[in-house]
């Protein structure tokens, strides 16, 4: 009899994703749940931009004077498109995936079918990105509705550019969040993820005040934060002046997405296949 000895964890070390149509089926499961619970799911997303624009654009904005006399609401417009969809994706792919992984054991149920771990991660990630894109599009819609008085949308380019930028930003934050979910042992650990990574990024990526006003060292740190590059892209699109730097920002986001995606797959395989 031949006894084959194989490495104990072959799947974990594999870099090439094992993705099939199963990923779409996982996405569809999430969509089905969303459509059942859409009222509660949407309430936050629908109200939030109005509150933020009222408080920051109208309230705070009256006391803020930017260099060059730019209106604060107009400055805030592209920043909001990046910052709030990030939250939507982080909640969906971080907390949501952790609940499905650890509390509900939904992932275990799914991978007992022909769907692979990579399919589950990819499907959940696509869903997190979908939610991010939905959120970005809705905020843009609100900004367009308020545009006659607040001038938050400065160029039609943003209407064209929002889909690719929101999509890559969604995929990146979904990957980062699932990566964290795959190593988290308890729900409480998400506090670290959120408070130490997401929240500082939210405030210090140039969404709420001009990035250039920060000291050199802070700008260097900012370059390593994913959200900064999305804010840059939206600002450039909103200014209507398409620059070569946008290729750099977009490539940065794509590369970070590829790296975190492969890591998320490997870490989730390690978590589920033991």
């Amino acid at each position, binding site marked *: 009899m031949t*006894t084959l000895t*194989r490495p104990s964890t072959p799947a974990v070390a594999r870099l090439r994703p094992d993705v099939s149509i199963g990923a779409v089926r*996982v996405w569809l499961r999430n969509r089905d749940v969303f459509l059942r619970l859409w009222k509660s799911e949407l309430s936050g997303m629908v109200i939030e931009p109005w509150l933020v624009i009222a408080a920051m654009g109208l309230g705070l904005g009256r006391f803020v004077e930017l260099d060059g006399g730019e209106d604060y609401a107009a400055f805030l417009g592209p920043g909001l498109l990046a910052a709030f969809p990030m939250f939507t994706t982080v909640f969906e792919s971080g907390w949501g995936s952790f609940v499905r992984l650890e509390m509900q054991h939904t992932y275990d*149920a799914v991978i*007992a079918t*022909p769907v692979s771990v990579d399919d589950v991660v990819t499907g959940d990630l696509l869903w997190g990105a979908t939610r991010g894109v939905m959120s970005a599009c809705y905020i843009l819609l609100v900004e367009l509705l308020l545009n006659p008085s607040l001038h938050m949308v400065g160029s039609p380019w943003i209407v064209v550019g929002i889909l690719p930028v929101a999509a890559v930003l969604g995929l990146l934050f979904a990957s980062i969040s699932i990566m964290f979910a795959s190593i988290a042992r308890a729900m409480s650990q998400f506090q670290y993820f959120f408070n130490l990574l997401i929240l500082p990024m939210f405030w210090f990526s140039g969404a709420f005040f001009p990035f250039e006003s920060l000291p050199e060292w802070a700008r260097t740190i900012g370059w390593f934060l994913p959200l900064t590059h999305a804010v840059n892209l939206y600002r450039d699109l909103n200014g209507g002046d398409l620059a070569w730097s946008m290729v750099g920002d977009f490539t940065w986001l794509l590369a970070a997405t590829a790296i975190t995606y492969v890591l998320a797959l490997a870490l989730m395989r390690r978590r589920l296949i033991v």
Partner: protein
Amino acid sequence: MTTAAPRPHIEARALTKRYDDYTAVDAVSFEVQPGEYLGLLGPNGAGKTTTIRMITCFSPPTGGELRVLGHDVLRDPRSVKAGLGLVPQDENLDPDLPVAKNLEVYGRYHGLDAPTRRARAAEQLAFFQLEDKAAVPVHELSGGMKRRLMIARALVAEPTILVLDEPTVGLDPQARHLVWQKLRQLRNRGVTMLLTTHYMDEAAHLCDRIIVMHQGGILAEGTPTELIAEHAGEAVLELRLPATEVEALLAPFEAGPGGVDVEEVEGLFYVFGAGPAAHEVATRLGDPSRAFVRPGNLEDVFLRLTGRGLLE
């Protein structure tokens, strides 16, 4: 078509699962034939669940060979899982979806189209007497209903092999008998079944053949009747007496192979192999609370083989 015997649905050769510090399954070899109901019987920690996890591609084997429906579990897990329906030990129904939708979404994971999965879901709910719960959230079901729904879910894609890990653990006797009844009825559909259990009555009730596992290895294998005849015998004498009295009582008997064998579990002595003399001893003592003869069962088989009880 060949005239040779059909290929076994599960083929394990020297199947091994080693972790850094211990070996959960140690070079076990067995086969499961098409249409067979095979039970893995053993206490917690015997390696039953790890074996199941390897078969269902949740845990890569670290040694040996494992083929399910002809597919290698490491090379082709998708094909393996396409032919399997798994009922895990812990409930993992989708709490975000109502009962029928749980089955339909599962059918979609298996690639069934919408009309087929709706029809299959309805069919399974009817079979498992859950049709009036179709629109109910999963958390409103009782434990027994959840277990039936898990089995229904595993069957929605009409798998060739149904794999159940401790299918009735934690259920009350009524719920458990309903599960048994449904599993027996599946025989008519030609399903192959592999189940783990630490309940000997469950194994005796459902399985054509039993593999007794202990500490990662296989201790014995056979039909329930064979195992009982070989290891427990027709008459088992139970004595609740001080050890010295037991010794005196059994002095006339020959010990060792072919003779009597005594196992003690918490002050209760089990005497195997005494034959008709078992009845004589019991009658002589005349007190059923101290001496009692009963037919052998699978619990005895395990006790004889390991010197320990199944449930502890």
